[in-house]
């Protein structure tokens, strides 16, 4: 007698509906990693989602969680308010590179520095996606966007910002890692990092941060496959993958 088992098990908290994201956009993958992490850790019932402004403004449609919408860049401050009001809940922000590294730079730095026990998932695709592909703080030198049509020029626009390294340097941060989801090996590592980030919140270790390098095929003017390739050829060389801070790992050693 044979039995067919289902290998793919999507967590229940991941709402079963079609998404508005573009073909090949990595938001869907990132959402799934969050869903898997909070499911594996048994946190779903006690998790509060703090949304942000960007393509992922609708994340509350894709994760079945209590959620609050934040103004652009302010999610870490809103999350601070939520966590201070409900210290026993798991609170996380989910933000893009315009939201977090431009208008929200003060909020993320200070939330991290205060060591607020929240988790930030930072989806970096080097552009402002929702608004049509403008230059972002993480846009690479030479990369063409609608507001640097000749390509980002460091003399005029400065250099792209490496957020994970900066966040890792702040005292209140417990965990800071940069991952990608452009291939299976990286997805597996990303899943581990996202799970660890939430785990550290349960341990009240401090602020946890995961930067996920992602595609934006539409605004990069690429096919999904080309965009996925760009992660490896252009983004990882400038934004290296890896762990930049892990306070509990030190203690274990």
């Amino acid at each position, binding site marked *: *007698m*044979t*039995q*067919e*088992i*289902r*290998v*793919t098990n*999507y967590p229940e908290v*991941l709402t*079963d509906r*079609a*998404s508005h*994201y*573009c*073909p*090949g*956009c*990595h*938001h*869907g*993958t990132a959402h*799934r990693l969050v869903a898997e992490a909070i499911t594996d850790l048994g946190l779903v019932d006690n998790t509060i989602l703090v949304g942000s402004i960007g393509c992922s403004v609708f994340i509350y449609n894709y994760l079945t969680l209590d959620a609050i919408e934040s103004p652009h860049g302010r999610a870490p401050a809103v999350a601070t308010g939520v966590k201070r009001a409900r210290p026993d809940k798991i609170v996380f922000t989910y933000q893009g590179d315009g939201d977090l590294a431009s208008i929200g730079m003060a909020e993320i730095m200070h939330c991290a520095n205060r060591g607020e026990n929240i988790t930030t998932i930072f989806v970096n695709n080097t552009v402002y996606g929702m608004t049509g592909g403008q230059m972002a703080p993480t846009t690479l030198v030479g990369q063409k966007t609608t507001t640097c049509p000749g390509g980002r020029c460091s003399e005029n626009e400065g250099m792209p910002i490496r957020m994970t390294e900066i966040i890792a340097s702040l005292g209140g941060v417990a965990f800071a890692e940069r991952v990608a989801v452009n*291939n*299976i090996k990286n*997805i*597996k590592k990303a899943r581990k990092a996202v799970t660890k980030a939430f785990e550290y919140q349960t341990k009240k270790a401090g602020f946890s941060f995961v930067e996920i390098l992602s595609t934006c*095929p539409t605004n990069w003017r690429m*096919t*999904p*496959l080309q965009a*996925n390739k760009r992660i490896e050829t252009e983004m990882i060389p400038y934004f290296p993958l890896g762990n930049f801070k892990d306070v509990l790992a030190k203690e274990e050693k």
Partner: protein
Amino acid sequence: MSSRVEFREDRCKGCLLCTEVCPTGIIQQSSRFNQKGYKVTEIAPDMMSECKGCAFCAMMCPDYAINVYTTKSAKGGEK
């Protein structure tokens, strides 16, 4: 042991990321369009037997459009 892959054609956006990661290279773009106008991916029926059940395709799919099933025989099947 045998495996099969189900593509939810109403969810597929034709991004083809799954085709990149399939170790047996059996996933391909079909000639069918779904209602949203995306050209959906498929595994040709005669190629399905090559499927190893690794589910890399599902892991890579940003739209949760793929389900993978494995059938194990009761006695001494591979794990």
